[in-house]
C-alpha cells in the first residue's frame, strides 16, 4: 500500500520534472531560442554590444547566461521548485506567480463547478438509465449523451451562447444580456461576501460552467450506465436482492461503489482535456482565467509567464491524477489485498 503510493508519488514528480526540462530545452537550448533571439535583437535594433545585451537578457529572463548550461539548468530547476518563475515580460516588475495567483481561482471555480455538476447529474442519470433499460426514454437519453460526449467543448459553448445570448424567442431581448457579461464580474459590484457580488459572479460564470458541465455530462452518463449495468448482473447484487435489502441500499452500497471505480480513473484522465479546453472557452466568453492568460502570454511571447502557467497547469493535473489514485485505493480494497499477497509471498 505505502510502496504503491510512493511509486505513484515518484511518477508524479518525474512528470513535473519532464515538463520542466522540456520548457528549459525550448527556451534555452533550441536553435534560435527566445534568449538568443532577444540578445540578437538588442544588438541589431539598438546597436549595443554583446556583453550589455547579455546582461539585459540575464535580468529579463533571470538566468546566469555566462554560466555553463548545466549550471543554468540546475538553477532553473531550483527556481521552479521554489515556485519562482521570474517576472512577466509584458508587464515588467510583476511576478509571474502573482499573476497566476490572481487568475487561477477563477478557472478553478468555473471548471470545478462545471465538473461537480456534471459528475452529480451524470452519475445519477447514468445509474437511473441502467435501471430503466426497458423504458422508451432510455435510447433518447443515451443518444443525447453520446452526442454530448462526441462534439468538442467549444462547439457546445457556441451553441449555448446562441441559445442564451443571441436568440430572442419573440421577447425582444435574450435570456442573458450577453453583451454585458465580459470578464469575471461587473464594474459596479464590490468584491466580497455580499449577495450582489456572488450573484454577479455566478451570472458571469454561468455560461462557462454550463459549457464544462455539458461537455462532460455525456461521458459520465454513458460510463455510469455501462458500469452499473455490468455490476447489476453480478452475484453479490443478486444475493442482496434475494436478501430483501432496500433498493436504495443496494444502489448506493452494492452497485454504486463498484460502478464508481472505472469512473474515478476516467475522471483523472479527462482533467487534462478540460483544462486544455478552458483555453478556448475562456477566450470565447472573455473570462479572465488562467487559460486566457496563457493565450495572451503566448500571443505576446511572454516566455516566463507562459512557462509558469504551463507548469502550474501540468502540476495541477498531475496532482489530481495522484489524488485519483489514492481515491481508487480507498474505493477498491482489492488493490490493498493484492499488494499484501504479493509482498507476503
Amino acid at each position, binding site marked *: 500500500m505505502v510502496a504503491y503510493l510512493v511509486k505513484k508519488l515518484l*511518477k508524479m514528480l*518525474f*512528470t513535473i520534472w*519532464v*515538463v520542466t526540462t522540456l*520548457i528549459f530545452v*525550448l527556451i534555452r537550448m*533550441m536553435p534560435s*531560442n*527566445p534568449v538568443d533571439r532577444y540578445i540578437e535583437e538588442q544588438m541589431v535594433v539598438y546597436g549595443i554590444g554583446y556583453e550589455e545585451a547579455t546582461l539585459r537578457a540575464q535580468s529579463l529572463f533571470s538566468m546566469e547566461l555566462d554560466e555553463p548550461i548545466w549550471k543554468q539548468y540546475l538553477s532553473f530547476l531550483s527556481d521552479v521548485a521554489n515556485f519562482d518563475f521570474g517576472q512577466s515580460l509584458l508587464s515588467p516588475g510583476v511576478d509571474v506567480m502573482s499573476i497566476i495567483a490572481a487568475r487561477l481561482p477563477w478557472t478553478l471555480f468555473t471548471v470545478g463547478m462545471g465538473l461537480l455538476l456534471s459528475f452529480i447529474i451524470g452519475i445519477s442519470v447514468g445509474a437511473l438509465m441502467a435501471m430503466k433499460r426497458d423504458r422508451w426514454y432510455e435510447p433518447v437519453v443515451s443518444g443525447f449523451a*453520446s*452526442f454530448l460526449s*462526441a*462534439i*468538442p467543448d*467549444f*462547439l457546445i459553448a*457556441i*451553441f449555448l*451562447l*446562441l441559445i442564451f*445570448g*443571441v*436568440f*430572442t424567442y419573440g421577447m425582444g431581448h435574450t435570456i442573458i444580456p*450577453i*453583451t454585458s457579461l465580459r470578464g469575471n464580474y461587473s464594474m459596479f459590484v464590490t468584491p466580497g461576501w455580499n449577495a450582489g457580488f456572488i450573484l454577479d459572479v455566478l451570472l458571469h460564470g454561468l455560461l462557462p460552467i454550463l459549457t464544462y458541465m455539458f461537455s462532460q455530462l455525456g461521458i459520465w452518463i454513458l460510463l455510469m450506465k455501462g458500469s452499473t449495468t455490468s455490476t447489476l448482473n453480478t452475484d453479490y447484487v443478486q444475493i442482496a436482492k434475494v436478501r430483501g435489502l432496500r433498493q436504495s441500499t443496494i444502489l448506493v452500497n452494492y452497485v454504486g461503489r463498484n460502478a464508481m471505480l472505472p469512473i474515478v480513473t476516467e475522471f483523472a*484522465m479527462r482533467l*487534462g*482535456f478540460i*483544462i*486544455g*479546453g478552458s*483555453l*478556448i472557452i475562456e*477566450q*470565447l466568453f472573455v473570462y479572465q482565467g488562467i*487559460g486566457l492568460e*496563457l*493565450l495572451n502570454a*503566448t*500571443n505576446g*511571447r511572454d*516566455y516566463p509567464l*507562459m512557462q509558469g502557467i*504551463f507548469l502550474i*497547469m*501540468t502540476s495541477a*493535473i*498531475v496532482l489530481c*491524477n495522484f489524488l485519483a489514485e489514492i481515491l481508487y485505493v480507498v474505493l477498491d480494497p482489492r488493490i490493498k489485498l493484492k499488494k499484501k499477497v504479493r509482498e507476503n509471498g
Partner: protein
Amino acid sequence: MAEKVYRTLSSSGRAQRFFRQIWYAISHDRVGMIGFVILAVIVVLSVISPAVFPVDVESDPSSILQGPSAQHILGTDHLGRDIWCQIANGGRELLVLSFVTAVLGMLIGVLIGAFSAVVGGRFDEIMLFLADVWLSIPRFPLLVVFSAFFTLNNTTLALVLAILSWAGIFRTVRSEVLSLKERDYIEVAFMQGLSLGHIVIKEILPNMMGFLAVNFTLLMRSTIYSQVGLVFLGLLPLEQNWGVMINLAWTQGVIYNPRTILYLLAPTVMICLLILSLVWIGKALEDVFNPSLRK
C-alpha cells in the same frame, strides 16, 4: 451466383476480407450507415466543389452579411462572399489533415506498441511508464505553447499531433498485442523460429486491423478538435476550412447580428456532423470487431 452466396469471409483474401468486414459493420448498423452517408457527402463535396461551387475570390461590398436568399442559400459573409460555397469547400482541409495525422500517429503508436509488447521485460516497463507520464501532460496547452516557438502550419501540425498522440495509441495497442500474444498461433510462430519483424507484421498486425480501424477514427476526431481549436484561437494560418469560418464569423461580431447567424452556425454544425459521422462509424466497426461489446 451460388458460389458467391456460399463464400465465407475466411475464404476470401485478407484485404478483401478486411473491407468486407468494414462494409458489413456499416451496412448492418443504422447509426453507422447514417455516419457513413454523412462522411460520404462531405468527401464528395470536398472533391467536386472546387469545380462546382468555387469560393468567391472577390469581395462584393454591395451584399455584406446578408441573410439566406435564393441567390445565396446560406447568406453572405462580412466580405459579401457566398457562405454555401465556403461550407462546401471547408471540409477538405480538415479531412486531409486528420487523415494524414491519423496515418502517421497510428504508424508510430502501433510500431512502438507492438514492439514493446512483444519484447516485454524492462523495455516494456519503461515504455509504459513514459507513456503514462506523457499522457498526463495536457496536450492542447502544450500545442499552444509550441506555437510560440515554432511556426505551426498544417504540415508541421500533422507531424506534431502525430508525435504527441503516440502514448494513447501505444497503450491500447500494447494491451491488445499482449492479449493476442497469448494465443496459440503466435506461440507456434515463435517456436518455428520466425523473426520478430515477421511475427509483428505478418501474424499480429493483420489480426488487429479492426481494432486499429476503430482507433483510427478516434485519432481523426482528436485531430479535428486540435486543428479547429488552434484555428479558432488564431494560432494557425487562416486558410479555407470550417474552423477558419468560425474564427472569422466570431471576430467579425456575427453574434450581434442575428440575421446572419448562419455564418457562425453553419460551420459549427458541419464540424459536429463530421465528428459525429466518425464517431458513429467507429462505433459500428467496434460492434463487429469486438463481438463481446454487442448487446
